[in-house]
């Protein structure tokens, strides 16, 4: 690779932070409490090297605390590496902190000048960009009002417009596309693509793998201060998601097991007591739960297709729910129902045994009901699930809102509520 084609050259950098247990920066504290200024060295980066070619877009991925944001901070020169070197060829602009130096009492226009000057632009350069910045922010009418009168959305829009209009050779971005409404986000995203097509080198840190896949030519997966893998986003992101999914599933499995164990222990006490306990525990949830109480859902569990208890599922997997219920009085011609809602409160799916024409049944003693959802196409995110027991004529016996939460994960970047199985033929 010719030297002049490289925009960023990171050579074996390490960085550790001193984590002070109890730090005093005053003389008195330093002298009197010498022992207190003990600190632990935490190695955040353990030797990372990579190169970014001019015009290339690279995404840094990894879980929280893996060192990806630190890497970005080192690239911007906010911090310096302990060892190793970083060479940046060209003007660097960072979209790490939006609206740096904004003064609430000054007008939008004045703040554009202040903010842009912090990016190293001269007055002339700002004058030339002013129109673009204002146009992009869609704030023409408000541009001479003090920034304190802006809504937070307007504020971010102005800040982003300034940052994105600094014509940099290298653009560093940290979780930037979480600003404004969906429309503005799309606009920012398109602008980024445009900037990229003009040959700007881009480094993005993001949790949104979909965005990385759309913009970046390469993903670098940083794990515990080292590069674990790098390559085309589609492959690396999938590998990463797989890893994260497994980790998440493991940790929740552990959690669930522990919880079960606790319950078991409680149960091994007096049976009578447990009965009372569950009654008492349920009272605060009463608002989310109503019905005659003749039968009650006692416990809900979710399982993967291989029978392991889980609450995180991959899009396309089967999900099985088991409802343990108790019966006080016989419920004739009972109906079980399920409703799945996403975080925005949109019902994604709902059905019950009546709709599904399940043969009639009565509930006369404690038992368990199971429902298996096959190849669930819900896209990544959290979903709240309602469960209900009703009588045949629709009177709630135990309607339990938001009874259970599941999380869906997926590496693909498709959007919407649920995946529809599809085929292209071109």
């Amino acid at each position, binding site marked *: 690779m010719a030297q002049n084609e490289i925009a960023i050259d990171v050579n074996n950098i390490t960085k550790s932070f001193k984590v002070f247990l109890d730090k005093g920066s005053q*003389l008195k504290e330093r002298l009197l409490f010498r022992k207190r200024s003990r600190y632990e060295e935490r190695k955040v980066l353990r030797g990372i090297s990579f190169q970014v070619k001019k015009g290339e877009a690279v995404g840094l991925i990894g879980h929280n605390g893996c060192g990806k944001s630190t890497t970005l901070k080192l690239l*911007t020169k906010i911090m*310096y590496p302990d060892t190793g070197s970083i060479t940046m060829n060209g003007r660097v602009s*960072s979209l790490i902190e939006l609206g740096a130096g904004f003064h609430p009492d000054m007008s939008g226009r004045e703040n554009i000048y202040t903010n842009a000057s912090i990016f190293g632009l001269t*007055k002339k350069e700002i004058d030339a960009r002013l129109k673009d910045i204002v146009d992009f922010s869609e704030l023409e009418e408000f541009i001479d009002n003090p920034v304190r009168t802006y809504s937070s959305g307007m504020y971010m829009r102005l800040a982003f417009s300034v940052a994105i209009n600094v014509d940099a050779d290298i653009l560093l971005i940290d979780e930037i596309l979480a600003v404004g409404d969906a429309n503005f986000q799309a606009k920012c995203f398109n602008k980024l693509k445009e900037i990229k097509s003009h040959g700007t080198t881009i480094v993005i840190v993001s949790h949104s793998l979909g965005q990385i896949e759309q913009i970046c030519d390469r993903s670098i997966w940083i794990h515990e201060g080292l590069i674990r893998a790098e390559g085309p986003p589609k492959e690396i992101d999938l590998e990463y998601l797989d890893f994260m999914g497994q980790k998440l599933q493991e940790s929740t499995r552990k959690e669930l097991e522990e919880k079960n164990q606790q319950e078991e222990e409680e149960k091994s006490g007096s049976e009578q007591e447990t009965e009372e306990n569950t009654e008492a525990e349920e009272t605060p949830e009463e608002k989310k739960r109503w019905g005659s109480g003749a039968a009650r859902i006692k416990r809900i569990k979710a399982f993967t297709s291989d029978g392991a208890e889980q609450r995180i599922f991959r899009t396309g997997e089967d999900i099985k729910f088991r409802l343990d219920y108790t019966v006080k009085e016989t419920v004739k011609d009972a109906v079980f129902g399920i409703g799945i809602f996403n975080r925005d409160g949109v019902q994604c799916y709902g059905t019950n045994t009546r709709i599904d024409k399940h043969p009639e049944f009565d509930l006369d003693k404690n038992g368990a009901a199971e429902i298996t959802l096959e190849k669930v196409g819900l896209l990544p995110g959290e979903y709240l699930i309602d469960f209900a027991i009703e009588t045949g004529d629709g009177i709630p016996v135990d309607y339990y809102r938001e009874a259970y939460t599941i999380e869906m994960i997926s590496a693909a970047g498709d959007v919407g509520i649920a995946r529809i199985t599809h085929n292209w033929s071109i």
Partner: protein
Amino acid sequence: MNTIKELYAYRQMIVSLVKKDLRGRYKGSVLGFLWTFINPLLQLVVYTVVFSYILKANIDRYYLYLFVALIPWIFFSSSITVGASSVVAQKDLIKKIYFPRMVIPISYVTSCFVNMLLCFIVIFAVIIVTGVGINFAALLTLPIIMGVEYVMALGMALLTSAVTVYFRDLEHILGILSMMWMYMTPIMYDKSIVPDRLMPFFNLNPMTHVIECYRTVLYNKAMPDLSTLFFASGLGVAFLIIGCLVFNKLQRHFAEEL
């Protein structure tokens, strides 16, 4: 060399920070920008009352004698005391975004400097109103004197602002130190009353020469002996170089320390 080039590229940032500082300083107060003038005037009244009527300094037109020295001193002392906390005050910016860190002390000292220039309007007004008159030839040396003082103040501010990040007590220590420094500089009294034994000490103080020059030009209406300024400017440049070196060394870990 690189630093200078970079600072030049960020000149607009210095300009906007100075503007922001000057405009924001008295934001929300009723008298607003007028405080820039009221503050030194009131200080002047206090010192004049104390030294003309109570302590009786026996100096002709003591108010002017004091004023032409006090205004430059206020610029110098606020540059180093308040300037010391300027980097700490901008920690949000420093932790989040890259720019040459020196921009901060530079713009703070510059805004103090502009403030001093504004106060000079009051000085000239007093000079004209009271009929003291101006020596225009001598006045031409004023920018040189101001330049020397600026360089000195900047060097000190670079030093104190960088060290304060690691050692916050400095802010408070500097408050006392600058008061001591003020009394060891012939601002409220004449150099002639300084005991001979202490004289070498006073001559070592670069501010003595700077203040004397201001006074010669504005109060005595005479050409200042610029050769006395050589020492002060030499020291000023030394301050600036040391300040730059220390600042450059210390600024690498600003983001972590703040």
